[in-house]
């Protein structure tokens, strides 16, 4: 699947396109199919996202997983500061990235 990500303009937060808006949680991503560029252009012009780009991802029982480690780190937070990640209470979450 193809998903769309970028950063929130004002806060810099990593955000993911849900099909109707933006979320900080990658598991809420929508498959943008062939429409990623069009959505990215519209959303960037409306200042709802900064630097949007399309990535490959897969969906399994654990949710949506970006194909590249860089985007998995973006989705979670630094692997060396899991206390600052989006899932600080999950001690195993680091393995999801690797």
């Amino acid at each position, binding site marked *: 699947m193809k998903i769309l990500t970028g*950063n929130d*303009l004002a*806060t*810099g*937060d990593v955000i993911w396109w849900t099909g109707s808006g933006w979320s900080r949680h990658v598991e809420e991503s929508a498959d943008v199919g062939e429409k990623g560029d069009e959505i990215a252009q519209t959303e960037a012009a409306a200042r709802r996202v*900064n630097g949007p780009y399309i990535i490959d991802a897969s969906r399994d029982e654990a949710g949506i997983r970006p194909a590249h480690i860089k985007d998995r780190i973006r989705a979670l*937070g*630094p692997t*060396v*500061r899991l206390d600052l990640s989006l899932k600080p209470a999950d001690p195993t979450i680091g393995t999801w990235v690797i």
Partner: protein
Amino acid sequence: MYRYDQYDQAIVDARVEEFRDQAARRLAGQMTEDQFKPLRLKNGLYLQLHAYMLRIAIPYGTLNSRQLRMLGHIARTYDRGYGHFTTRQNIQYHWIKLQDAPDILAELATVEMHAIQTSGESIRNISADQYAGAAADEICDPRPWAELIRQATTFHPEFSYLPRKFKIALIASPTDRAALRWHDLALRIVRNEAGEEGFEVFAGGGMGRTPFIAYPIRAFCPAEQIFSYIQAVLRVWNSHARRDNIHKQRMKILVHDLGHEEFTRQVEETFAHMLTLGTDFPRAEYERIAAYFTPPPFETGLPEEIDRADPEFALWVDRQTAAHKAPGYAIVNVSLKRVGGIGGDITADQMDIVADLAERYSFDDIRVSHAQNLVLPHVRKQDLHAVWQALDAAGLADVNLDLVTDIIACPGLDYCTLANARSIPIAQKIAQRFADIDRQLELGELKIKISGCINACGHHHAGHIGILGVDRKGTENYQLLLGGSGAEDTSLGKITGPGFDEDGIVDAVEKTTDVYLRERQDGERFLDTYRRIGVEPFKEAIYG
């Protein structure tokens, strides 16, 4: 240290308001990101993996306690409670909001700090010996010259849109603690036969994709002519530089392509012209600046003896302190390399504690080293025990200066958009493998430097053991380099062979140290043994 005059303050304050307007226009949609990006970068604001990153300049690595407390305040108020000291003696915060950035810069301006020229195609923060003004082996304090050069080059129109970034380092000791010859322009203050101070000049160094050690281009430039010489170097580069190809824009490429003899000839020709223009620093201006760096009022008659009854304290003294030029004083190195921690990271509370210690015990003076540690440069030997106790209580009294766990590592793929692989977890695993202090001391001086990509912010080319993270088909992979040095015996590390995964690189480092322990002769450091026996015994152990 240098203090802003009314002009400095007015310039920095105006810059803050200019950026406040720029940021507001971006947030209001009056500028695209393409339009805004060069403006935010000129104020040190990057967009990294998780948020904006703000890099703040610490000129020649010198801070006072008020400034360090402000850095702690920024960490606490605008970031997530910590900051990260970099290999250019700067600090950066990784969780900044664009909407907060103008307020942060305004707060910094109140303590005479800014983020100007910490990014972009400019002359970056001038780095210097972290022991400047304290080192027993220096011939003078190099910081007045660093400050003069900083002032003369900041906002200089000829240097505002350089072909690429430009890095200057400055020392005044035979011992190189600043990775001098890994800079575009490297200046070492020396004395000629007449006893006059001047500059030994090296040019064309740099790490990154194409590493070069700076060539010596002038054995002695009279001190009062150094700005003409610097301008000549920059002008020659500027006139030739390949602005069409990002991989060829750094000055090191030009020096290499022209040949350093021809580059030097052109610099000398331009220098002769520059001297006719009268743009050098008047002596009075040097003296005005130098007055800010007058040595603190060191006490005399202080005891040299240190009570070494506590073995842990004695060990810390032996490893973490260095000789000071004033009798009865020592230079204290504060390790930011706790095993299991993140090298260069420091919490807001720790910043406050170091600031308090500097105020009480070190004439209000703190330094940042390019190795991502801190220094209290002027501590009375009789106060060392109290300082050690306070540092220990704050988790800052680790003993590992220049040892195997004192690892330089860039933020890597955990934070950086440019990175191909994570650096910090590799540093952590190596540090954990070698955590035993007796083992570290047995290995002696051993500098490991790790970069998460070819840009080499972690100085892997200059590591006795260097590690370069690469992306191999979407997987992190680590190449091992041996034999580099960032000290006065500067050398370029060589890649040993195929790379390793995360655990494999740690094993490879351990096998490398095993060869050293087996092969070393009396008094040899790791680097000495490597240079004597060559790479083959190491390759055999690693890949055999």
